């Protein structure tokens, strides 16, 4: 039966029960407001917890940046000291480095007297010296420096005239560690 027919019947005759409208179903929606609010609150909680999570990630990030800044400045300073040493004793570095290459090749070399230290190790300096993990390197600063070391490498040379030298500084500050490399071109002039 269509709605139009049922309306006509209702107007003309006895009123039939209105079962099709299911008015009582509305009554089953009781407590919907609480459900909606709970869903709303839950979604706000999820947003809030992700916000807190993001916020807690920012703080360690700032500490890492500070560690990196401190490591960079310390490495710059150590590079300057390493260059100063090379500038003072270029010929000793040149001989020590070339000799070490020959030694690694297995060439027959003159016996070292005294045997230790190897000339290149001597040039790099012993542990706890200014270029090798000296415990006074940061002075009174409270930088979380864990360790550092310095290594020289010659990448090209024209004996007693021109050298290409690399200085590597390995640094570990806090959770940050990096190898800093500086390359410099050296021309020697007779004074």
């Amino acid at each position: 039966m269509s709605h139009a027919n049922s309306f006509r019947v209702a107007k003309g005759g006895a009123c039939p029960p209105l079962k099709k409208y299911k008015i009582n179903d509305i009554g089953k929606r009781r407590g919907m407001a609480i459900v909606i609010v709970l869903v709303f609150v839950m979604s706000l909680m999820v947003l809030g917890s992700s916000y807190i999570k993001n916020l807690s990630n920012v703080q360690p990030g700032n500490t890492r940046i500070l560690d990196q800044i401190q490591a960079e400045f310390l490495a710059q300073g150590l590079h300057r000291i390493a260059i100063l040493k090379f500038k003072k004793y270029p010929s000793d570095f040149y001989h020590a480095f070339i000799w070490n290459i020959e030694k690694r090749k297995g060439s027959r070399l003159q016996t070292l007297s005294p045997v230790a230290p190897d000339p290149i190790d001597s040039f790099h300096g012993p542990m706890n010296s200014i270029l090798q993990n000296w415990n006074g390197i940061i002075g009174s600063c409270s930088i979380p420096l864990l360790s550092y070391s310095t290594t020289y490498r010659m990448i090209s040379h024209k004996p007693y005239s021109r050298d290409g030298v690399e200085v590597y500084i390995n640094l570990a500050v806090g959770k940050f560690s990096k190898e800093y490399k500086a390359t410099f071109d050296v021309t020697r002039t007779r004074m």
Partner: protein
Amino acid sequence: MHLRTRRGVTLTEIMMAFLIMVMALLPISNLISFGHRGTQKDLRIVLAQELLVDRMNQLNAIPFKQLNPLIITGTHVRLTSRIFSGTNLEVPLGDIARHGATYTISATLTRVPASFTYRPVDFGDLDYDQASATSWRFKAEKEERFDAGTNPYKILRTQVYVNWTEPHPQKPRQIEAVSYVVDYED
């Protein structure tokens, strides 16, 4: 009338729902203000790091021969106010206000004793041939010191400190960095 039997959202339900919502929104509003405070704190740290990098770069760009005379007595000096004012080497130290916080910037210069070790080649050896490493003889290790004894100081430690106070709760903060300036001149 049948429509009278229709039951919707009652006033009590609305009141309860509103109460739950208000109770949930209170900590969330606290969370938002906590987040805002966190952002402000981060901003202050970033600004402090920016000042630290700036002053370190300025200080380390000054040649050794200009920095060294700032140490008048002993081997150490603490600098708390502007140095080399009006010159291109100027480093602004002291109090600086930025974004509602006051940063105090100071620096220290320290003469650092150093010793360099190496094994010199025996150039006096008659077998010495510069072109052949197999002919080289090395002397015993030598150590040269730069500590104002036989040689003057060649190395200055530069340290910069940035201090400020965190407002909530009141807590002094400090960040610092260290580097070195050397004397390349003989």
